[in-house]
Protein backbone atom coordinates (compact mmCIF):
# COMPACT_ATOMS: atom_id res chain seq x y z
CA UNK A 1 0.00 0.00 0.00
CA UNK A 2 1.19 3.45 -0.76
CA UNK A 3 2.11 5.36 2.34
CA UNK A 4 3.58 8.72 3.13
CA UNK A 5 6.39 9.14 5.63
CA UNK A 6 6.66 12.66 6.92
CA UNK A 7 9.59 14.18 8.70
CA UNK A 8 9.59 17.65 10.23
CA UNK A 9 13.14 18.66 10.97
CA UNK A 10 14.82 21.65 12.60
CA UNK A 11 18.57 22.16 13.02
CA UNK A 12 18.34 21.25 16.69
CA UNK A 13 16.16 18.19 16.43
CA UNK A 14 13.81 16.09 14.36
CA UNK A 15 10.51 17.50 15.54
CA UNK A 16 8.25 14.77 14.32
CA UNK A 17 8.45 11.77 12.07
CA UNK A 18 5.94 9.15 11.21
CA UNK A 19 3.43 7.83 8.76
CA UNK A 20 0.79 10.18 7.51
CA UNK A 21 -2.05 10.41 5.07
CA UNK A 22 -1.42 13.96 3.98
CA UNK A 23 0.85 16.93 4.50
CA UNK A 24 -0.70 20.37 4.10
CA UNK A 25 1.31 23.58 3.91
CA UNK A 26 1.75 26.76 1.93
CA UNK A 27 4.61 27.57 -0.44
CA UNK A 28 5.34 30.90 -2.07
CA UNK A 29 3.12 29.72 -4.94
CA UNK A 30 0.16 28.83 -2.77
CA UNK A 31 -1.34 26.12 -0.60
CA UNK A 32 -0.49 22.55 -1.39
CA UNK A 33 -1.22 19.08 -0.11
CA UNK A 34 1.16 16.18 -0.41
CA UNK A 35 -0.46 12.77 -0.65
CA UNK A 36 1.18 9.37 -0.96
CA UNK A 37 2.78 8.84 -4.39
CA UNK A 38 3.20 12.54 -4.91
CA UNK A 39 5.78 13.30 -7.57
CA UNK A 40 9.26 14.41 -6.59
CA UNK A 41 9.09 18.01 -5.55
CA UNK A 42 11.35 20.58 -4.00
CA UNK A 43 9.97 23.85 -2.78
CA UNK A 44 9.78 26.45 -0.10
CA UNK A 45 7.33 26.89 2.75
CA UNK A 46 6.24 30.32 3.85
CA UNK A 47 5.71 31.06 7.51
CA UNK A 48 2.48 29.47 8.59
CA UNK A 49 0.89 26.36 9.96
CA UNK A 50 1.90 23.00 8.51
CA UNK A 51 -0.59 20.22 9.09
CA UNK A 52 0.06 16.52 9.05
CA UNK A 53 -2.97 14.24 8.86
CA UNK A 54 -2.47 10.79 10.26
CA UNK A 55 -4.64 7.92 11.37
CA UNK A 56 -4.19 9.16 14.92
CA UNK A 57 -5.50 12.59 14.07
CA UNK A 58 -4.02 15.84 12.89
CA UNK A 59 -0.74 17.32 14.06
CA UNK A 60 -0.11 20.98 13.49
CA UNK A 61 3.20 22.81 13.51
CA UNK A 62 4.03 26.48 13.45
CA UNK A 63 6.78 26.72 10.84
CA UNK A 64 8.63 30.01 10.55
CA UNK A 65 9.66 29.57 6.96
CA UNK A 66 11.49 26.65 5.47
CA UNK A 67 11.76 24.17 2.65
CA UNK A 68 10.31 20.82 1.78
CA UNK A 69 11.31 17.94 -0.38
CA UNK A 70 9.27 15.02 -1.56
CA UNK A 71 11.66 12.25 -2.40
CA UNK A 72 11.20 9.49 -4.93
CA UNK A 73 9.10 6.51 -3.83
CA UNK A 74 11.23 3.66 -2.67
CA UNK A 75 10.61 0.02 -3.52
CA UNK A 76 7.87 -0.49 -0.96
CA UNK A 77 5.95 2.45 -2.33
CA UNK A 78 6.78 4.74 0.54
CA UNK A 79 6.83 8.40 -0.34
CA UNK A 80 9.07 10.50 1.84
CA UNK A 81 8.27 14.10 2.56
CA UNK A 82 10.73 16.17 4.54
CA UNK A 83 10.05 19.62 5.92
CA UNK A 84 13.15 21.60 6.86
CA UNK A 85 12.64 24.66 8.99
CA UNK A 86 15.06 26.87 10.87
CA UNK A 87 12.47 27.40 13.57
CA UNK A 88 9.36 25.31 14.07
CA UNK A 89 7.30 23.93 16.92
CA UNK A 90 4.26 21.83 17.67
CA UNK A 91 1.29 24.10 18.09
CA UNK A 92 0.51 22.32 21.35
CA UNK A 93 3.97 23.27 22.64
CA UNK A 94 3.43 26.97 22.08
CA UNK A 95 3.51 29.07 25.21
CA UNK A 96 0.66 31.49 24.50
CA UNK A 97 1.49 33.84 27.36
CA UNK A 98 5.09 34.07 26.20
CA UNK A 99 4.09 34.66 22.58
CA UNK A 100 1.65 37.34 23.69
CA UNK A 101 4.36 39.04 25.72
CA UNK A 102 6.76 38.80 22.77
CA UNK A 103 4.15 40.33 20.50
CA UNK A 104 3.58 43.27 22.81
CA UNK A 105 7.32 43.74 23.19
CA UNK A 106 7.81 43.75 19.42
CA UNK A 107 4.94 46.20 18.92
CA UNK A 108 6.36 48.55 21.52
CA UNK A 109 9.74 48.27 19.86
CA UNK A 110 8.27 49.07 16.45
CA UNK A 111 6.38 52.06 17.82
CA UNK A 112 9.53 53.35 19.46
CA UNK A 113 11.49 52.86 16.25
CA UNK A 114 9.06 54.72 14.02
CA UNK A 115 9.13 57.62 16.43
CA UNK A 116 12.87 57.49 16.93
CA UNK A 117 15.18 56.66 14.07
CA UNK A 118 13.31 55.63 10.92
CA UNK A 119 16.64 54.98 9.22
CA UNK A 120 17.54 52.07 11.45
CA UNK A 121 16.55 49.37 9.00
CA UNK A 122 18.24 46.48 10.76
CA UNK A 123 16.44 47.10 14.04
CA UNK A 124 13.21 47.58 12.14
CA UNK A 125 13.59 44.27 10.37
CA UNK A 126 14.42 42.47 13.60
CA UNK A 127 11.42 43.88 15.40
CA UNK A 128 9.21 43.06 12.44
CA UNK A 129 10.46 39.50 12.29
CA UNK A 130 9.87 39.11 16.03
CA UNK A 131 6.36 40.47 15.66
CA UNK A 132 5.61 38.10 12.79
CA UNK A 133 6.90 35.11 14.71
CA UNK A 134 4.83 36.01 17.76
CA UNK A 135 1.73 36.54 15.65
CA UNK A 136 2.20 33.23 13.87
CA UNK A 137 2.59 31.46 17.21
CA UNK A 138 -0.60 33.02 18.51
CA UNK A 139 -2.51 32.19 15.35
CA UNK A 140 -1.19 28.64 15.34
CA UNK A 141 -1.99 28.11 18.98
CA UNK A 142 -5.52 29.46 18.55
CA UNK A 143 -6.69 26.70 16.24
Amino acid sequence: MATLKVEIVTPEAALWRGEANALIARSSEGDFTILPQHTETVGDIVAGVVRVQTNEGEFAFAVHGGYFQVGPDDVEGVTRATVLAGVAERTTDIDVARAQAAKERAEAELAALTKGDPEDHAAHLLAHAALERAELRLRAAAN
Partner: protein
Amino acid sequence: MAGGQERNLRRRIKTVNATRKITKAMELIAASQITRSQARITANRPFRDGMRRIIIEAAKGDPAAAKRLLAQPENVESALVLIVAGDRGLSGAYNSSVLRAGERLVNSLRAQGTNVRIIAVGKKAAPYFRFRGFNVEQSFIGFADRPSFADARGVASTVAAPYIDGEVQQVFLVSTRFLSAGSQVVETEQLLPLSVPEAPVETSTKLKGYTEFEPEVEQLLFFLAPRALESEIFSALLEGAASFHTSQQRAMAAATDNADDLGQNLTRIMNRARQDSITTEIMEIVGGAEALRSGK
Protein backbone atom coordinates in the same frame (compact mmCIF):
# COMPACT_ATOMS: atom_id res chain seq x y z
CA MET B 1 67.68 20.82 58.23
CA ALA B 2 66.16 17.52 57.12
CA GLY B 3 62.75 18.39 58.57
CA GLY B 4 62.56 21.41 56.27
CA GLN B 5 62.93 19.22 53.22
CA GLU B 6 60.13 17.01 54.39
CA ARG B 7 57.85 19.96 54.95
CA ASN B 8 58.63 21.26 51.47
CA LEU B 9 57.79 17.93 49.91
CA ARG B 10 54.55 17.75 51.86
CA ARG B 11 53.56 21.13 50.50
CA ARG B 12 54.37 20.08 46.94
CA ILE B 13 52.31 16.91 47.28
CA LYS B 14 49.40 18.99 48.49
CA THR B 15 49.70 21.26 45.44
CA VAL B 16 49.87 18.31 43.07
CA ASN B 17 46.81 16.75 44.66
CA ALA B 18 44.88 20.01 44.47
CA THR B 19 45.72 20.32 40.78
CA ARG B 20 44.75 16.72 40.26
CA LYS B 21 41.35 17.42 41.75
CA ILE B 22 40.82 20.26 39.29
CA THR B 23 41.95 18.33 36.24
CA LYS B 24 39.84 15.36 37.32
CA ALA B 25 36.78 17.58 37.66
CA MET B 26 37.43 19.15 34.26
CA GLU B 27 37.82 15.71 32.77
CA LEU B 28 34.47 14.60 34.14
CA ILE B 29 32.72 17.77 33.01
CA ALA B 30 34.21 17.45 29.53
CA ALA B 31 33.13 13.82 29.38
CA SER B 32 29.54 14.74 30.14
CA GLN B 33 29.71 17.54 27.56
CA ILE B 34 30.94 15.09 24.93
CA THR B 35 27.81 13.01 25.25
CA ARG B 36 25.63 16.07 25.03
CA SER B 37 27.39 17.63 22.06
CA GLN B 38 27.46 14.30 20.27
CA ALA B 39 23.71 14.00 20.74
CA ARG B 40 23.32 17.46 19.23
CA ILE B 41 25.32 16.43 16.17
CA THR B 42 23.08 13.41 15.73
CA ALA B 43 19.98 15.56 16.13
CA ASN B 44 21.28 18.00 13.53
CA ARG B 45 22.09 15.36 10.95
CA PRO B 46 18.63 14.95 9.38
CA PHE B 47 18.44 18.69 8.85
CA ARG B 48 21.92 18.99 7.36
CA ASP B 49 21.40 15.99 5.07
CA GLY B 50 17.96 17.23 4.05
CA MET B 51 19.41 20.61 3.17
CA ARG B 52 22.15 18.99 1.08
CA ARG B 53 19.63 16.79 -0.71
CA ILE B 54 17.54 19.80 -1.63
CA ILE B 55 20.60 21.61 -2.99
CA ILE B 56 21.55 18.56 -5.05
CA GLU B 57 18.01 18.23 -6.42
CA ALA B 58 17.82 21.91 -7.27
CA ALA B 59 21.22 21.90 -8.93
CA LYS B 60 20.20 18.89 -11.01
CA GLY B 61 16.87 20.49 -11.88
CA ASP B 62 18.36 23.51 -13.59
CA PRO B 63 22.10 23.16 -14.19
CA ALA B 64 22.30 26.51 -15.94
CA ALA B 65 20.83 28.40 -13.01
CA ALA B 66 22.96 26.39 -10.62
CA LYS B 67 26.01 27.34 -12.60
CA ARG B 68 25.20 31.01 -12.40
CA LEU B 69 24.70 30.88 -8.64
CA LEU B 70 27.10 28.21 -7.55
CA ALA B 71 29.90 28.25 -10.12
CA GLN B 72 33.53 28.68 -9.18
CA PRO B 73 34.72 32.24 -9.69
CA GLU B 74 37.45 32.50 -12.31
CA ASN B 75 39.22 35.40 -10.77
CA VAL B 76 39.60 35.46 -7.04
CA GLU B 77 40.86 38.81 -5.86
CA SER B 78 39.82 38.56 -2.25
CA ALA B 79 38.86 35.63 -0.12
CA LEU B 80 37.43 35.36 3.35
CA VAL B 81 38.52 32.72 5.82
CA LEU B 82 36.27 31.66 8.69
CA ILE B 83 38.12 29.85 11.44
CA VAL B 84 36.29 27.91 14.12
CA ALA B 85 38.36 27.45 17.28
CA GLY B 86 37.46 27.18 20.96
CA ASP B 87 36.72 29.70 23.68
CA ARG B 88 38.86 27.99 26.25
CA GLY B 89 42.28 26.43 26.43
CA LEU B 90 43.41 23.39 28.41
CA SER B 91 42.18 21.27 25.55
CA GLY B 92 45.30 19.67 24.16
CA ALA B 93 46.03 20.42 20.56
CA TYR B 94 42.46 21.37 19.64
CA ASN B 95 42.99 25.11 19.25
CA SER B 96 46.54 25.04 17.99
CA SER B 97 45.89 22.53 15.21
CA VAL B 98 42.90 24.37 13.80
CA LEU B 99 44.68 27.71 14.12
CA ARG B 100 47.78 26.41 12.42
CA ALA B 101 45.71 25.01 9.56
CA GLY B 102 44.02 28.39 9.26
CA GLU B 103 47.33 30.18 9.15
CA ARG B 104 48.59 27.82 6.47
CA LEU B 105 45.54 28.50 4.33
CA VAL B 106 45.85 32.25 4.78
CA ASN B 107 49.52 32.13 3.83
CA SER B 108 48.95 29.99 0.75
CA LEU B 109 46.14 32.27 -0.42
CA ARG B 110 48.37 35.28 0.08
CA ALA B 111 51.13 33.58 -1.87
CA GLN B 112 48.72 33.39 -4.80
CA GLY B 113 48.23 37.11 -4.57
CA THR B 114 44.79 36.91 -3.01
CA ASN B 115 43.62 39.44 -0.50
CA VAL B 116 42.61 37.60 2.66
CA ARG B 117 40.13 38.64 5.31
CA ILE B 118 39.75 36.68 8.51
CA ILE B 119 36.69 36.09 10.68
CA ALA B 120 37.08 33.95 13.75
CA VAL B 121 34.88 32.01 16.13
CA GLY B 122 36.25 31.33 19.60
CA LYS B 123 38.19 33.43 22.06
CA LYS B 124 41.44 31.65 21.26
CA ALA B 125 41.52 32.50 17.56
CA ALA B 126 41.78 36.27 17.34
CA PRO B 127 44.82 36.74 19.65
CA TYR B 128 46.70 34.05 17.74
CA PHE B 129 46.28 35.85 14.44
CA ARG B 130 46.72 39.34 15.81
CA PHE B 131 49.98 38.29 17.42
CA ARG B 132 51.19 37.14 14.01
CA GLY B 133 50.25 40.41 12.43
CA PHE B 134 47.05 39.34 10.68
CA ASN B 135 44.01 41.51 10.93
CA VAL B 136 40.97 39.72 12.31
CA GLU B 137 37.89 41.48 11.09
CA GLN B 138 35.46 40.04 13.54
CA SER B 139 35.68 37.58 16.37
CA PHE B 140 32.70 35.72 17.76
CA ILE B 141 33.04 34.83 21.41
CA GLY B 142 30.94 33.03 23.94
CA PHE B 143 29.20 30.19 22.14
CA ALA B 144 32.00 27.91 20.95
CA ASP B 145 31.15 25.45 23.75
CA ARG B 146 27.45 25.28 23.06
CA PRO B 147 26.50 26.87 19.77
CA SER B 148 22.85 27.52 19.02
CA PHE B 149 21.33 27.81 15.58
CA ALA B 150 20.83 31.53 16.17
CA ASP B 151 24.60 31.83 16.70
CA ALA B 152 25.21 30.04 13.42
CA ARG B 153 22.82 32.46 11.73
CA GLY B 154 24.76 35.41 13.07
CA VAL B 155 28.03 34.00 11.81
CA ALA B 156 26.50 33.11 8.44
CA SER B 157 25.15 36.58 7.81
CA THR B 158 28.47 38.20 8.73
CA VAL B 159 30.33 35.84 6.46
CA ALA B 160 27.90 36.13 3.58
CA ALA B 161 27.63 39.94 3.55
CA PRO B 162 30.98 40.71 1.85
CA TYR B 163 30.36 37.86 -0.60
CA ILE B 164 26.96 39.20 -1.56
CA ASP B 165 28.42 42.69 -1.94
CA GLY B 166 31.04 41.26 -4.26
CA GLU B 167 33.92 42.24 -1.99
CA VAL B 168 35.16 38.68 -1.76
CA GLN B 169 34.79 35.95 -4.34
CA GLN B 170 35.41 32.96 -2.14
CA VAL B 171 34.74 32.02 1.47
CA PHE B 172 36.61 29.23 3.21
CA LEU B 173 35.89 27.44 6.44
CA VAL B 174 38.58 25.94 8.64
CA SER B 175 37.17 23.80 11.41
CA THR B 176 37.53 20.54 13.24
CA ARG B 177 35.31 17.75 12.00
CA PHE B 178 34.05 15.26 14.52
CA LEU B 179 34.34 11.96 12.69
CA SER B 180 33.91 9.81 15.79
CA ALA B 181 34.73 9.89 19.47
CA GLY B 182 38.16 8.61 18.55
CA SER B 183 39.01 10.80 15.61
CA GLN B 184 38.65 14.47 14.87
CA VAL B 185 40.24 16.04 11.86
CA VAL B 186 40.91 19.63 10.94
CA GLU B 187 39.43 20.33 7.54
CA THR B 188 39.41 23.22 5.14
CA GLU B 189 36.44 23.55 2.87
CA GLN B 190 34.91 26.10 0.60
CA LEU B 191 31.71 27.62 1.95
CA LEU B 192 30.91 30.06 -0.82
CA PRO B 193 30.17 29.67 -3.60
CA LEU B 194 28.26 26.74 -2.17
CA SER B 195 29.74 23.52 -3.33
CA VAL B 196 27.18 20.95 -4.35
CA PRO B 197 28.11 17.70 -2.65
CA GLU B 198 29.24 15.34 -5.38
CA ALA B 199 28.08 12.05 -3.98
CA PRO B 200 24.38 12.06 -3.13
CA VAL B 201 23.80 11.68 0.57
CA GLU B 202 21.32 8.95 -0.07
CA THR B 203 20.86 7.27 -3.41
CA SER B 204 17.24 6.87 -4.28
CA THR B 205 16.15 3.43 -5.25
CA LYS B 206 13.65 4.39 -7.90
CA LEU B 207 13.88 7.42 -10.09
CA LYS B 208 10.81 8.97 -11.50
CA GLY B 209 12.69 11.16 -13.88
CA TYR B 210 11.76 14.69 -13.13
CA THR B 211 11.26 16.87 -10.15
CA GLU B 212 8.82 19.68 -9.66
CA PHE B 213 9.95 22.96 -8.20
CA GLU B 214 7.97 25.56 -6.35
CA PRO B 215 9.05 28.27 -7.07
CA GLU B 216 11.40 28.05 -10.07
CA VAL B 217 14.85 26.65 -9.41
CA GLU B 218 16.72 29.89 -9.83
CA GLN B 219 14.55 31.72 -7.34
CA LEU B 220 14.53 28.74 -5.04
CA LEU B 221 18.32 28.48 -5.08
CA PHE B 222 18.66 32.19 -4.52
CA PHE B 223 16.82 32.01 -1.22
CA LEU B 224 18.00 28.54 -0.35
CA ALA B 225 21.70 29.33 -0.55
CA PRO B 226 21.85 31.45 2.63
CA ARG B 227 19.87 28.80 4.51
CA ALA B 228 22.24 26.10 3.32
CA LEU B 229 25.16 28.25 4.44
CA GLU B 230 23.63 28.58 7.90
CA SER B 231 23.12 24.86 8.05
CA GLU B 232 26.73 24.11 7.07
CA ILE B 233 28.10 26.60 9.57
CA PHE B 234 25.87 25.25 12.30
CA SER B 235 27.04 21.70 11.82
CA ALA B 236 30.65 22.91 11.72
CA LEU B 237 30.08 24.72 15.03
CA LEU B 238 28.47 21.65 16.57
CA GLU B 239 31.27 19.39 15.44
CA GLY B 240 33.84 21.90 16.62
CA ALA B 241 32.24 21.96 20.07
CA ALA B 242 32.16 18.17 20.27
CA SER B 243 35.79 17.98 19.14
CA PHE B 244 36.74 20.57 21.72
CA HIS B 245 35.15 18.63 24.56
CA THR B 246 36.69 15.36 23.39
CA SER B 247 40.08 16.99 23.14
CA GLN B 248 39.73 18.58 26.55
CA GLN B 249 38.63 15.34 28.14
CA ARG B 250 41.66 13.58 26.72
CA ALA B 251 44.05 16.35 27.79
CA MET B 252 42.61 16.46 31.29
CA ALA B 253 42.74 12.68 31.65
CA ALA B 254 46.42 12.81 30.73
CA ALA B 255 46.99 15.63 33.20
CA THR B 256 45.27 13.64 35.95
CA ASP B 257 47.46 10.64 35.22
CA ASN B 258 50.52 12.86 35.34
CA ALA B 259 49.47 14.29 38.67
CA ASP B 260 48.98 10.74 39.97
CA ASP B 261 52.51 9.78 38.94
CA LEU B 262 53.99 12.96 40.30
CA GLY B 263 52.19 12.58 43.62
CA GLN B 264 53.35 9.00 43.93
CA ASN B 265 56.97 9.92 43.22
CA LEU B 266 56.91 12.81 45.63
CA THR B 267 55.37 10.68 48.35
CA ARG B 268 58.13 8.16 47.88
CA ILE B 269 60.82 10.84 48.09
CA MET B 270 59.13 12.33 51.12
CA ASN B 271 59.02 9.02 52.92
CA ARG B 272 62.66 8.50 52.26
CA ALA B 273 63.45 11.98 53.55
CA ARG B 274 61.42 11.32 56.66
CA GLN B 275 63.15 8.04 57.27
CA ASP B 276 66.51 9.71 56.74
CA SER B 277 65.72 12.36 59.28
CA ILE B 278 64.50 9.77 61.78
CA THR B 279 67.65 7.77 61.27
CA THR B 280 69.76 10.84 61.74
CA GLU B 281 67.88 11.74 64.90
CA ILE B 282 68.34 8.26 66.37
CA MET B 283 72.00 8.42 65.47
CA GLU B 284 72.26 11.74 67.25
CA ILE B 285 70.47 10.45 70.34
CA VAL B 286 72.56 7.31 70.45
CA GLY B 287 75.69 9.34 69.84
CA GLY B 288 74.73 11.76 72.60
CA ALA B 289 73.96 8.98 75.08
CA GLU B 290 77.22 7.31 74.18
CA ALA B 291 79.13 10.53 74.81
CA LEU B 292 77.40 11.09 78.16
CA ARG B 293 78.16 7.55 79.31
CA SER B 294 81.84 7.68 78.32
CA GLY B 295 82.10 11.12 79.97
CA LYS B 296 81.01 9.72 83.38
